[in-house]
């Protein structure tokens, strides 16, 4: 499932280890590791993993509300 790839990238980039990340669990504001530097790092990791380009004006806090929201954002970039 693609959302699992996004979950892996989040866990990998934030160093969360095996921490369980539910699809609808709150991310931004709830996961302390997710500061602005980490958000930038996640965006970069998503770009590299999925071969997409994410412009600054596409980055919005709402995309980081939950894992499901982030996955939806990635899928929107992948669908032509």
């Amino acid at each position: 499932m693609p959302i699992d790839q996004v979950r892996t990238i989040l866990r990998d980039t934030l160093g969360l280890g095996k921490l369980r990340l539910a699809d609808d669990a709150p991310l931004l504001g709830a996961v302390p590791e997710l500061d602005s530097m980490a958000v930038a790092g996640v965006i970069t990791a998503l770009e590299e993993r999925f071969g997409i380009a994410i412009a600054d004006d596409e980055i919005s806090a709402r995309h980081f509300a939950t894992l499901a929201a982030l996955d939806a954002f990635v899928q929107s970039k992948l669908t032509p």
Partner: protein
Amino acid sequence: MTTVSAAGAQPFFLPAHGGQRYCLYHPPRAGAAARGAIVYLHPFAEELNTTRRMAALQARAFAAAGYGVLQIDLHGCGDSSGDFADARWLQWRRDVTLACDWLRARAAGPVSLWGLRLGALLAVEAAADEAADALLLWQPVINGRQHLRQFLRTGHTARMLSDGAPDADDEVAGYRIAPELARAIEALDAGDFRPGCPVHWFERSGEDGELPPASARHLAAWRAASVALHEHRVRGSAFWASADNADCPALLAATAAACAP
């Protein structure tokens, strides 16, 4: 973990354009077979700070293995002269020459360029001019434009999350990048170079053990061009990207193994 003493490291300043460069020389361990010398080229902007510990650990490990290691703070960086806004890529190239010349004046033997992140791209570009005997590349930046975009992105996400005072337009996290420096970095791509010396490429792999597609493509292109390439995939933290000065023991181990006699 073997503890390597830093007692032998020699700090000094080299005169250079705009003033001087802060250098730290790790002499090869007395009694070790002399293996040659290594110039360390540090990463861009804040990554210099997040990577200090890993660079120090590896420099000491190299010294213990018989290599002389010269760390140099580039113009405008670290403890060298100048503000970051004064930094120019061509001057950084001259700083590389300065460091290599200093080493070659002191001992015969191979001189390798060891670069981390953007320092790795600097090493790739400089390798031919400096007649580098080998390239040791840690988590190399392949594309300068992408690297700069990722750096500028941190300023944007900080504003988005209102982490603190907003940066000025040309400044990110306290780093002002001169337009000339930005243009020079954006023009660089590792794919434009064909190193004639052996290249050891160390890069963090994902949970699936794979490198990012762009890295895999680049390495394939270099192999097709007969670059003497040794790829080392490393599991561990992206230590350059976080402020907690984490270690990456796997990278130290992989480097030790690659450089074993």
